[in-house]
């Protein structure tokens, strides 16, 4: 009888090429996503050392961070130039490096282009039980499908390109169990924001989180992607969901997913990828679903969360002196005062997009609020940025684009956009944005920009009222 193992331990054990005496393991990597920002120096390193990409067939390159979200081709179908010379140079480098090293490249004007973490699952590139890496911390998202997926730095990108492996120490395991029934208007984004509020931004450091309990079992795959995506905001390099029938139904028929007899063999294996009865986690956090409200951030760290019905906390309410100092600084930066009602905070910008919340279910949730309403007069810009060309096409087939445009939103091309402001989509200094992205760090959406992280429905609600709003007031369902 083998010892009971967690899901993480099963995937880890299946990928050990060699184990050193000190516990460091050479871990095989099954899937590698590459984008333009963290790869140029890695390809350059290979070139300088005369090295090749070991498994170009397991590597997929997609540009996303720098791409403008405005039209990419003119009326005649000709590609439009990218105004920012640095962005253009970085995009050109990927476009050159991918074919030079034999890596499949989905280009800026291809229908399948999108944010790497939307494209991977959508194409069936991400599979349960695999190890998947990318030079981006939100790679944690792919754990929604039961892949051990984590962000890596550029030196590691180069290491994976050259060897298809990484040298790693095993992580500790953390179980986050949310049981019960979510209230009306409470979405996966609210769940993960609440979780981060409970564990803190360093709560998961050194750990891989497995999300367990009825709330996560009942959650859709897209909802799980939102949750797992933000594992890194809780300090965990990776999140995991045990693959189940929802996972298999989601993947079946995707372009890069297994087919025929391979599919059946794969599903049979994937069904073994569950945490065994009696397996031990290093840490367990239990949360009652009933305690989770539609949630919003007030400060400059993703752990600075409060229910939308709440108020800006007073720095004196924190006993830890460094937290108190951080809260004072955050309130100053955010232009908020202690005790102010969150619902009284007006916004000038709304961003619905990012690898956290740009999938079709996110757009449907936002459209349900936007339908028949208008973007409020005080809003300077309300952007909808679909996560991929395929999401965009699907939304257009469902008429969501019409709903958004009629309400006064801008309907854009896919990319990372205003999540981190590497492209022209930025929030001006001192202005405030209700954003479905993942980080509210100082300057994240542009120098001096003020970010409030929210769900897609709450972002749409803020757009139509002009201030942070409890979405339940618009839908008429109060908890």
């Amino acid at each position, binding site marked *: 009888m083998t010892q009971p193992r967690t899901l993480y331990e099963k995937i880890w054990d299946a990928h050990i*090429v*060699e184990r050193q005496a*000190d516990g*460091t393991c*050479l871990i*095989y990597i099954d*899937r590698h996503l590459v984008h333009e*920002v*963290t790869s*140029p*120096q890695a390809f*350059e*390193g290979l070139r300088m*050392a005369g090295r090749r990409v*070991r*498994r170009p*067939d*397991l590597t*997929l390159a997609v540009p996303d*961070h720098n791409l403008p979200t405005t039209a990419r081709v003119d009326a005649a179908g000709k590609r439009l130039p990218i105004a*920012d010379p640095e962005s253009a*140079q*970085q995009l050109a480098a990927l476009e050159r490096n991918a074919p030079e090293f034999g890596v*499949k490249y989905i280009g800026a004007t291809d229908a399948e282009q999108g944010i790497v973490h939307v494209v991977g699952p959508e194409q069936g*590139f991400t*599979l349960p039980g695999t190890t998947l890496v990318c030079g*981006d*911390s939100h*790679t944690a998202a792919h754990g929604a499908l039961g892949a051990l997926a984590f*962000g*890596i*730095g*550029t*030196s*590691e990108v*180069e*290491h994976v390109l*050259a*060897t*298809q*492996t990484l*040298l790693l*120490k095993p*992580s500790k395991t953390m179980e986050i169990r949310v049981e019960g029934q979510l209230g009306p208007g409470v979405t996966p984004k609210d769940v993960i924001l609440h979780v981060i509020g409970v564990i803190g*931004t*360093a709560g998961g450091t050194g750990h891989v989180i497995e999300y367990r309990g009825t709330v996560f079992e009942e959650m859709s795959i897209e909802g799980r992607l939102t949750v797992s995506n933000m594992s890194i905001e809780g*300090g965990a390099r990776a999140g995991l969901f045990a693959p189940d029938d929802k996972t298999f139904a989601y993947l079946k028929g995707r372009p*890069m997913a297994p087919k025929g007899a*391979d599919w059946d*063999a794969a599903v049979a*294996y994937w069904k073994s990828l569950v945490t065994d009865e009696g397996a031990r986690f290093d840490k367990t956090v239990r949360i009652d679903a009933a305690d989770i409200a539609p949630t919003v951030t007030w400060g400059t*760290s993703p752990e600075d969360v409060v229910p939308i019905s709440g108020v800006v906390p007073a720095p004196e309410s924190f006993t830890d002196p*460094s937290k108190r100092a951080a809260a004072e600084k955050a309130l100053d930066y955010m232009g908020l005062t202690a005790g102010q009602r969150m619902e009284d905070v007006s916004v000038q910008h709304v961003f619905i997009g990012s690898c956290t919340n740009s999938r079709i279910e996110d757009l449907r949730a936002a459209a349900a609020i936007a339908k028949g309403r208008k973007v409020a007069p005080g809003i300077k810009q309300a952007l909808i940025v679909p996560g991929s060309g395929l999401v965009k096409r699907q939304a257009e087939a469902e008429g969501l684009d019409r709903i958004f445009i009629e309400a006064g939103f801008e309907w854009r091309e896919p990319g990372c956009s205003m999540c*981190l*402001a*590497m492209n022209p989509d930025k929030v001006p200094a001192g202005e405030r944005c209700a954003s479905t992205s993942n*980080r509210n*760090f*100082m*300057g994240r959406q542009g120098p001096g920009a003020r970010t409030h992280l929210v769900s897609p429905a709450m972002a749409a609600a803020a757009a139509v009222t002009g201030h942070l709003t409890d979405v339940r007031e618009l839908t008429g369902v109060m908890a």
Partner: protein
Amino acid sequence: MEPINTVEGRAYPLGVKNVDTDMIIAAKWLKGITRAGLGQGAFEALRAEPGNVFDDPTYKGSPILIAGDNFGCGSSREHAAWALIDMGVRVVIAPSFSDIFSGNAFKNGILTVALPQDAIDRLMEVAKTDPIHIDLESQTVTTPFQDRFTFEVDPFRKTCLLGGLDEIGLTLARTDSIGAFEQARADDQPWLAPALV
């Protein structure tokens, strides 16, 4: 990477908690295609504040940085490590580090030293007036006032840092093992490859 063993010098007493990688190097500095020159963008927003430690002539060119808990959280950008190297920082001392940052730091020959908060508080005090000495071989941080703190370091990382070893070169020497593993995996789980159509 540059080998590292002993580092002695003044230290930036930053002390701030949750220094995220956006704070170390903002997104607008990530657009380059080389590793060089990022020091000029390091801590840009903090440096806009009057009286910040980075522009204080006392600390100019310090090889050591002292910070609060959870240093390097957030994005995986290795530019954060490149920016620190470019500004001359070889050692960061903090109570804890994010996982991705500590890996990136190591791969660029930056030593991350985790010490308890009371040790950090003491070093923050010393840093205001005197240099700090770090010895990787003996895993100690010492001050001119007989303070002596020992720190943990992963043995493999220690060997690589002391020798300035190229990790990719080391792994490529194990190509046979990787090939054998890959073959066994392909036989056992044929659906895994090729991924691309």
